[in-house]
């Protein structure tokens, strides 16, 4: 396979709070190739959004990227090396803040946020905001940028774009605003667009329209996408490859069809099993028991073991790194679960453990402050 467009290796982003260090992203690695839509899926709190803002180096304080490598088209977005004094310091090749702003953000990597209601500035017109970003990232003058903005609004299906150009965000419905944000991203002609749960706040019919449109436009412009979502249906519909995140880690990574039909991690299967289906009536849902633990104090061993129906004693002790489990000639399919023979840590001999999966609902409290008044 060709050189990836974006390559993330062992990325770690942590938040330094009063209560301790929150390891929001804890050593994830994935690639995005040209022209593909890569899914990043997981429940809330899995660290998806932190991962995407890390790629743009836009993690808000008190968060900080503490380790790993991010390479984009041969440039180092993030990378550390050990200095003479043994301290880690940014590598010389790492882009400066100004270079990030001028060369990467918007121009090479654009982002679409989850909340279309809050992402647009309420006091500026839609057109004005669009034009500004185009001017900055495409080196066009104001007139050209305006034309480009109007064309792009039409492209994403905004009716009467000339007149709506001068309207304000509050005059647009949620779906329309999300289209504007997509137009914004596409208009800057980046190579990669990060879409952070862009359809979560929308109705299914609107979501459907937007996904259709994105698929068409993605083909037309050949842009790569990182598509962040919690919804497996969206993944099934739009993604080429998928990374499943749980508690700051990527626990399974596969092509979309393999992920659904040859699921290798118990969390992924549990997630798929817990969903009600629109196309058939299920007698009973099989939920994942318990809740996701806090990233401030993750369980030892496999982080999912506390909720895993297949957990054994060894899962409590061994922390599995993701491994490629695909057969020769197949597309890579990595998973971080010791039940696979490749790990060879004695899963089969290990006795099953009592977990929240069998312990009922009463377990799984968040630990902080329960007793305080």
């Amino acid at each position, binding site marked *: 396979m060709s050189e990836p467009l974006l390559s993330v290796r062992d990325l770690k982003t942590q938040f330094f709070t009063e209560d301790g260090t929150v390891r929001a992203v804890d050593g994830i690695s994935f690639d995005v190739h040209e022209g593909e839509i890569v899914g990043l899926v997981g429940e809330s709190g899995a660290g998806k959004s932190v991962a995407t803002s890390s790629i743009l180096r836009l993690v808000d304080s008190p968060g900080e990227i503490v380790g790993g490598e991010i390479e984009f088209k041969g440039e180092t977005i993030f990378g550390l090396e050990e200095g003479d004094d043994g301290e880690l310091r940014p590598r010389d090749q790492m882009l400066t803040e100004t270079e990030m702003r001028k060369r990467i953000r918007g121009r090479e990597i654009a982002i679409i946020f989850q909340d279309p209601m809050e992402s647009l500035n309420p006091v500026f017109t839609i057109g004005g905001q669009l034009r500004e970003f185009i001017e900055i990232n495409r080196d066009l003058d104001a007139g050209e940028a305006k034309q480009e903005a109007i064309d792009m609004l039409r492209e994403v299906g905004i009716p009467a774009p000339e*007149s709506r150009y001068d309207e304000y965000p509050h005059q647009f419905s949620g779906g329309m605003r999300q289209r504007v944000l997509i137009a914004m991203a596409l208009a800057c002609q980046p190579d990669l667009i990060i879409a952070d749960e862009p359809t979560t706040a929308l109705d*299914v019919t609107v979501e*459907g329209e937007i996904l*259709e449109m994105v698929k068409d436009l993605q083909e037309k412009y050949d842009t790569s996408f990182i598509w962040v979502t919690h919804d497996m249906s969206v993944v099934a519909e739009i993604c080429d490859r998928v990374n499943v995140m749980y508690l700051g880690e990527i626990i399974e990574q596969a092509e979309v*069809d393999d992920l659904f039909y040859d699921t290798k991690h118990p969390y992924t299967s549990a*997630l798929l099993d817990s969903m009600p289906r629109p196309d058939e009536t299920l007698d009973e849902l099989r939920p994942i028991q318990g809740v996701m633990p806090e990233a401030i104090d993750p369980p030892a061993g496999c982080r999912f073991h506390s909720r895993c129906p297949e957990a054994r004693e060894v899962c409590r002790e061994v922390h599995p790194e993701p491994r490629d489990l695909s057969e020769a000639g197949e597309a890579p399919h990595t998973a971080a679960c010791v039940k696979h023979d490749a790990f060879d840590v004695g899963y089969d001999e290990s006795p099953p453990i009592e977990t929240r999966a069998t312990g009922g*609902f009463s377990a799984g409290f*968040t630990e902080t402050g329960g007793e305080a008044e």
Partner: protein
Amino acid sequence: MTEVGPPESDPEALLQVRDLCKYFDNESGLLAGVQFDDEFPYVSRSTSDVRAVDGVSFDIKEGETLGLVGESGCGKSTLARTVLRLLEPTSGSVYFQGEDLASLSGEPLRRMRKDMQMIFQDPQSSLDPRMKVGPIVEEPMKAHDMLDEEGREARAKELLEKVGLDPQHYNRYPHAFSGGQRQRVNLARALSVNPDFIVCDEPVSALDVSIQAQVLNTMEELQEEFDLTYLFIAHDLSVIRHISDRVAVMYLGNIVELADKEELFENPKHPYTRALLDAIPVPDPRSGGRTALLSGDVPSPIDPPSGCRFRTRCPKVIQPDEYDMTEEAWRNVVTFQRAVERRSFEETDPDALRSRFFDDALPSGDAGTLLDEALGHVERDEFEDAERILVERFADQSVCATATPAYEVPSDRTDGRHYAACHLRRDEAVASAVDEAAVGGAVRPGAEAPEADD
């Protein structure tokens, strides 16, 4: 709508909603409704009611779950609150245990609330952050003078256990719980007074998928154990399919279809239901994605379309009887009309437009003449005139615009009744509540159709 809709008129039903309307005054304040115009008489008083719920009727039988599904803004939450009399209905009745809640107020209404409870969407904001879980669960019992202090505490603990929480958590504050657990506290509170009927307003939509399933399972178990009747509101058809016995589909303040679950999902009779079903994503990469998506925005509930409210987006809107176009030609006219309304193209050249919109079928006759006239307006950049011709002469002439649909059709899959508010079902209907004069009136050009000039 009174003859066929509601689909049931079962006097035994636990809850009977009849022709319920809830309008909101768009403006508030003493002078808020006063508008100043640039022309004489300069001041006018506007009435811009938002018709959130507009003539809804249905029954809920004891022990069943009625699912109510619709997109955001369709009025489903307002309907829930109006049914429970948390909002005062503008008109209509809600019979619960033989009493019309709409006519109750004050203390008698408060007493009725013992038997009907509600569960809210947001597990965070529905619990008072300054109250411990125990008192939260006990509050309804206290309000209805149930048991003594110790009895209430014992019952609260018992209920916490029933909904899957640790009774030891009686003394914890809500913030110490996760979203799913808070929703369980909500359940315990609702159950505390032993109600017959619970309205669940999107109870799982704020939860992660894996947690959704836990809560849904618990709700089903509790329904069985306590003999509960649910009105279950959701925008997620998968959830509705899982939990409901019967399903009502709501669009812009109206119920457009109501049938048993299997019937509705497998044999939908309303184009909107069809469109919704087609729009649901399936968690399966081999499913082939969604098909036939709706386009356009939901119209404003301040001034909803006449007749069938879905007709402005309906892919199957019926050709007015006065024209005799082929089906393809009529579809093209509709597509063109909506494109003009949305100003979604730039071209003004009639030939280009003809080939773009009417490539396979061009209307002839009267329709063709009107279309040429509209194209002429477009060419002169008079979009408004073009729009007026297309809307007034085509869209507004359709039976979908002149008569409000209400039909009962035979059920294919189950014994239950199947209500569908779509004129396409005219011929197969076993009963209808449509003003025949309005349907007939549309046939004769120029006839006064009272609803048509909306």
